[in-house]
């Protein structure tokens, strides 16, 4: 229960000495840093990112097949995580796989957030028929199952050769979630008096959307974008697992699991590491998202249709 509700007061907590000197950013950082799981997750995620992007510079093997690598070695010795049947170093594969997975996921999130925010803010600001029409389009993208639709198109076009094409396809089916969140927030924001104040001073629609609505919706947007990273990772992994995502000779975590799925008990070192890494990435991102929500959006607004 918030302190505010407790007193039954219409007046939010007053800023006193202890908060007056802090900027908004500092307050947010402070609140985030108090969220212990989120802080631990942040450290872990940074380590994983380093592992994926900097790690390959320090490790002799990359993800491709080498004649020098004996097949099916269990972990230990020259190959700390073992080797595959074809002759890949699993550690090298893992670095590359994580790298591709992260690249796809972050691109999806950026792209979807950009399109979704603009779409949602426009619909929310204008309201009425414009809103009804624009949101109907969003509904359509929301009803198609993300993974399946993306997999169908990727499989059809053979886009798996490049990670950016995969990212684009996933983004096509995931911007709608962001649009919906932003539209919900903007719909309530635009009724706020400060928006009317800007209109009363003669501000134009783009002025209001870019200077008032989007900055104020930043909290929910950042949270949604963060959580979308996790969704995108699972979508890409699922596609690659089915063989419809990133294709050989390139590699991704989902694909590694896919090719090892018949070897769960015989060669567990092929099956478990990519899975654990996937879970770790998603878990950290979800916790960070949770921490961000607490820090940015203390009185969480839930969007209902």
């Amino acid at each position: 229960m918030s302190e505010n509700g407790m007193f039954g007061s219409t007046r939010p907590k007053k800023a006193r000495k202890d908060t007056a000197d802090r900027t908004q950013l500092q307050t947010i950082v402070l609140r985030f840093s108090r969220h212990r799981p989120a802080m631990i997750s942040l450290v872990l995620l940074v380590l994983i990112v380093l592992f994926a992007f900097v790690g390959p510079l320090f490790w002799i093997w990359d993800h491709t097949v080498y004649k020098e690598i004996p097949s099916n070695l269990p972990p230990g010795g020259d190959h700390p995580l073992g080797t595959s049947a074809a002759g890949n170093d699993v550690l090298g594969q893992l670095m590359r796989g994580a790298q591709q997975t992260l690249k796809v996921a972050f691109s999806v999130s950026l792209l979807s957030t950009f399109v979704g925010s603009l779409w949602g803010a426009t619909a929310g600001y204008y309201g009425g028929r414009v809103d009804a029409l624009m949101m109907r389009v969003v509904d359509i993208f929301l009803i198609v199952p993300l993974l399946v639709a993306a997999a169908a198109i990727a499989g059809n076009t053979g886009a798996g050769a490049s990670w950016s094409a995969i990212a684009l396809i996933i983004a096509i089916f995931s911007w709608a979630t962001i649009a919906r969140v932003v539209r919900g927030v903007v719909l309530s924001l635009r009724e706020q008096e400060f928006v009317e104040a800007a209109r009363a001073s003669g501000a134009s629609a783009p002025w209001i959307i870019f200077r008032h609505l989007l900055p104020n919706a930043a909290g929910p947007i950042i949270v949604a974008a963060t959580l979308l990273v996790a969704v995108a990772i699972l979508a890409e992994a699922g596609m690659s697992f089915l063989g419809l995502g990133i294709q050989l000779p390139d590699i991704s975590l989902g694909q590694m699991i896919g090719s090892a799925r018949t070897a769960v008990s015989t060669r567990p070192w092929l099956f478990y590491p990519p899975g654990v890494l996937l879970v770790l990435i998603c878990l950290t991102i979800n916790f960070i998202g949770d921490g961000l929500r607490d820090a940015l959006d203390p009185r969480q607004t839930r969007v209902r249709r």
Partner: protein
Amino acid sequence: MTTEYMNEEHAAAATDDDVVLEVTDLSVTFPSDDGPLPAVREVSYRLRRGEALGIVGESGSGKSVTSMAIMGLLPRNARVEGSAKVLGQEILGLSDKEISKVRGQKIAMIFQDPLTSLNPVYTIGYQIAEAVLAHKKVSKQVAMARALELLEIVGIPSPDQRLKQYPHELSGGMRQRVVIAIAMANDPDVIIADEPTTALDVTVQAQVLDALQRARRETGAALVLITHDLGVVAGQVDRVGVMYAGRIVESGPVEEVFYRPRMPYALGLLGSLPRLDGDRSDRLTPILGTPPSLRDLPEGCGFAPRCPMARDLCHQEEPQLLLTLEGGDRGPAEAGDADGHTAACHFSGELTGVEASDLFQATSVDTEGVGSVAEVEAAESLIAEAREEYLEEARAEPETAPETAGSTEPEVLLSATDLVKHFPIRSQGLLRRKVGEVQAVSGVSLDLRERETLALVGESGCGKSTTARLLLNLIRLTSGELTYMGRPLHGLSDRRMRPLRKDLQLVFQDPFASLDPRMAVADIIGEPMRIHGSGHRDARKRVKELLELVGLNPEHGSRYPHEFSGGQRQRIGVARALSLNPRVLVLDEPVSALDVSIQAGVINLLEDLQDELGLSYLFVSHDLSVVKHIADRVSVMYLGKIVETATTEQLFRAPAHPYTQALISAIPLPDPIKERTRERIIVTGDIPSPANPPSGCRFRTRCPKFAGELSEAERTKCVEEPPELLDRGAGHRDACHYSQVVELI
């Protein structure tokens, strides 16, 4: 700090059968990230059978937390100490099973917001019957019959139908009466009403207070009435306790406290209140500073930092709540005197015969940001300079320099004729077909003259805010004409309207929603200038002047809105509106979200700005007391129409329209004797929906005249013919076929 002397006396009082609720040294502390928050500190009071006790205080004073603690309704993490006894039984710390037998049965509660107090998924009947069944082993039919009976008592029309309805089908006033019915279901000994009418309109407030009185008569329950409204307290209770920073700082019989306050805070509160029975020329006296943060309460008296008569002792030692004696001495309460006039002030004796204006200063500077009289004076000279500069600049711009010399009648700036605004009600589907319309404004005409304040008064849903926005061309007219200095405004495109927006500006109600929380104050105030293409550096300089002009520290421009308190934010809103040198300000309920002690300073500021800058105000408000204080002329609105227009003087002295009369008589006066003896004109029912207004005269469904005095033939005219707004002489116009002047104050 101790109140031991009270305890001894309570030992004797425990045998007193008359006492139904006895609270002793009740303290409530909430844990928080920044340490414990003492929300309530050592509150003690006694309530006798059938008695009514008022607890008044501003927001955050701990008045609601006290009652929640008594009911055991606080969240688990709250630490509650002390004792609360109902009929001699200790009720703090009881198990769920034991407290369930007390709640509802012996002590019942009414909450502030009727819109959220009832469960949306159960019928009214179910929820009342549930309260009966919780304590009595009766059949469901019997419980339902009791529910019906209760609805009748609280005055709900056609109660048998209401039983089957869901909460959302009832208006706020009706729902609050349902909550009262629930409270009286088991004939409790005590009813605690926590701001029961704050969320309601005044005419509905009168009905609900009436229902509350009936409930008391019916059940014989004692009442604890918690409110911030001094007027409500004055008319409803026998004794009153004033809370400040978690403590009771003054208590006693209501007349004593209102007529002879012995604590500077109570005196200050009364002085900062605009009064319906007051004089317009009286300046209001705001209290300096803000209530202390519970997190770091000052040593000594909690009010000392704001108190004009505070001395060293006040800053060192917290005064006890002691009996005040005639002649100014203070002494410990004797047994049996506990119901006397007590005050927690070291120097309460010096307050004998002192008026608020003797002690507090009538100033328009930001009283929340300063702490001493010297600071106020410094700030006042700053504000004066700023006004000079502002005037010079305004004069430098030729187009806004008004040439009024020579003309006797002030020029009409803004003129509206027959404004109509209908909002379509649309279906939820893709096509959004129009399925009806809300007639928010139906034919409003008014003129706003130079340098005058025209108030637009009415209850919620009467269309006053819509009218205000129509006047600024913020929403499109359905029909009607609107001119500014002779130029038509209706139908102008946004682009053509933009230059005119410089002259017409708006100040909002909610000081928290009207400032963009992500922008620094300087950017907020400078935004209108940037929209109108002013240079960055010019805007910078001007922002500082504007901050000074509204009495704020010019160095605070880089701060964010959340660092300011309510009244300060409202000043920022005024500064933003002034940034383009407007001639007309539309003020939409500018002070209704503020606590009274802060409201006074903002009202003073608005008055000063008008005097010195020659602004015209359109003042939209539901609060007749404020309107009486600030306006030159008043228009009263009801359901989208103006029903009466007159000068403030005429309107309050001799209101002609039955609705105006009802409105005026529904406003509680903060004066116990006047409030109990004045003549009342009570209206029944709720405001009809503007989607489906009554034919003829829109007020007839609630009109006491229509219901009581008129003949059948006369009524037919009311039903069939909408009355026009006609002049009854001297510019006093009303829209009633059978208007008749009544004197009410």
